[in-house]
């Protein structure tokens, strides 16, 4: 991948996990990122992981894959991530946010196993998202060939 001219909008791919139909956070995040000048490819709700991979193939300039999951099914919905990565796909930071396991009592093991699948960043609040994207962007500059 060639480095983008700095005045090009930064691209991210956004969507909600395969079994999850919760749309509100997705739409707010999309609007928020666009308001901050991002080019957002929003795949919407109920998006299987391979569709995120297809979208990245179509938009190789994307800096990150942002996946939301609030219905509790994050783990089952992301379980193909290692397989896709093995195939050389989805080789961008995967950022996950939402309500990441079933039930009102959360354990840290719930998050650990998502990390074990290859999720790169787990974000709790919306306010963390933009700073994280900036950090990822900065980390990327010195190694423009990363993608």
């Amino acid at each position: 991948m060639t480095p983008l001219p700095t005045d090009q909008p930064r691209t991210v791919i956004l969507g909600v996990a395969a079994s999850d139909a919760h749309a509100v956070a997705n739409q707010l995040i999309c609007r928020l990122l666009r308001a901050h000048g991002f080019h957002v490819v929003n795949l919407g709700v109920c998006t299987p992981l391979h569709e995120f991979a297809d979208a990245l193939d179509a938009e190789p300039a994307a800096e990150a894959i942002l996946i939301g999951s609030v219905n509790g099914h994050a783990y089952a919905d992301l379980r193909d991530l290692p397989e896709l990565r093995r195939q050389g796909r989805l080789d961008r930071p995967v950022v996950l946010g939402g309500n990441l396991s079933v039930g009102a009592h959360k354990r840290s093991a719930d998050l650990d196993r998502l990390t074990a699948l290859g999720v790169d960043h787990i974000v709790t609040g919306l306010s963390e998202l933009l700073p994280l994207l900036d950090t990822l962007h900065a980390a990327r500059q010195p190694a423009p060939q990363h993608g």
Partner: protein
Amino acid sequence: MAEFPGLEVSAAVAARLPDWDDIVAYLRNRPGDTVPDVLRAADRSGVPAIQPRCGVGGHAEMLALLRELALSAPSVLSVTIDSYTRLRQFDVAARVLAEEPARLNGYPLVAHGWQRGRELADAVPVPLEVRHGSPDGRDLFATALAAGITSFEGGGIGYNLPYCKDVPLDVSLRSWQQVDAACGALADAGVLVDRELFGTLTAVLVPPSISLAVTLLEAVAAAREGVRCISISYPQGGEIHQDVAALRAVRTLAARYLDPRVEVFPVLHQFMGAFPADPAWASGLILHGALTARLGGASKVVNKTEQEARGLPDADANGKGIRLTAVGASSMFDFVELDADRVAEELHWIEEEVAELVEPVLAEEDLLAAIGAAFRTGRLDVPFSASVHARNQVIPRRDPGGAIRYADHSALPFSGATRRRHAALLAGSAPAPRPGPGEITAVIRDISYFADRTPARTP
């Protein structure tokens, strides 16, 4: 392989089910109250029936959950279905069930099979309802009937637009038409099925007239297929005069537009948007919802819990939610009076707006086609649609009193009077900010109307 009159069930599922006649015979002879019995009794007493949402993956766990919740004396219990089953990914549901049932966000009834469903229905002294969110619920419906469950939620609009990305409305409407036709056949055979329509839609800032227009169109469609018992749910928005008016409108609109042979029961879903995480605010909101249900004359209220903002509630929190709802709907709060003029004014306008939305659609020859067309052209719409088959261009806002109004009605065919009213009501709010971070902040503020009040009285 079982054959179902008018209802196309997938071969794999049908192969596992009993014959239609056996199912009908079983349903006819089931002892105990049905959901319609419960709802009629609630209407007679003036105290709404109470129903929790509840569904966990494992069968033994589900039996235990239902039995524990029964101790809090709900009127109806739910079998809430997991998201995989809703989306007909029965294989994924079965796989996660085999691996670790606790990871499912509901009970995978199709994977468990109808025999286990009967065990659920037999385990508790109150009738069950299947609550799901399936754009195409036919296999699930057939399995529920075989299990002896005769209360089934869903409709071609309300179980499509909030619940999936890309199922055309035509497809979902036709599949729910088959469910309704089967209910019509059952009614003729003496088995009354309660069909609940999901007026909650996307749950967040849903304007009452959108909720009511959608369920009314679904109800007319269902009645035409022979459905004889319809529960129409409406999501508490949080401004009580508006919510009470909306619940009352369920009955007035049904009287105006529906075949009088159809029984209609208004149902309140306690606040369905972003819930406060603080238990005290959550309890207050549950009580608020119970009051709303009773004042609005709801036949039933579906309760929330103190843990709503955190995740699927445990049995303890759910039992508490049921009991607190019972307290809020009890004579302890008999003294609460509302400003009757305000309620009457909201009711007048809700009826008016619903008429403006549904009458052009009802005037068409082919109702289902007309619904699809209306959503395509934006003459019907829902905010925050999960589906690409609604325009998603309506922008709701809260007015200074908290009521939900149209900041942008987009292509909804509202009269000048209706539009002017909404503009005037929102004039008191902060001016609608331009697209950009400011606008999003304003929307988030309205969404977080209750969620923000947390924790109570931060020191």
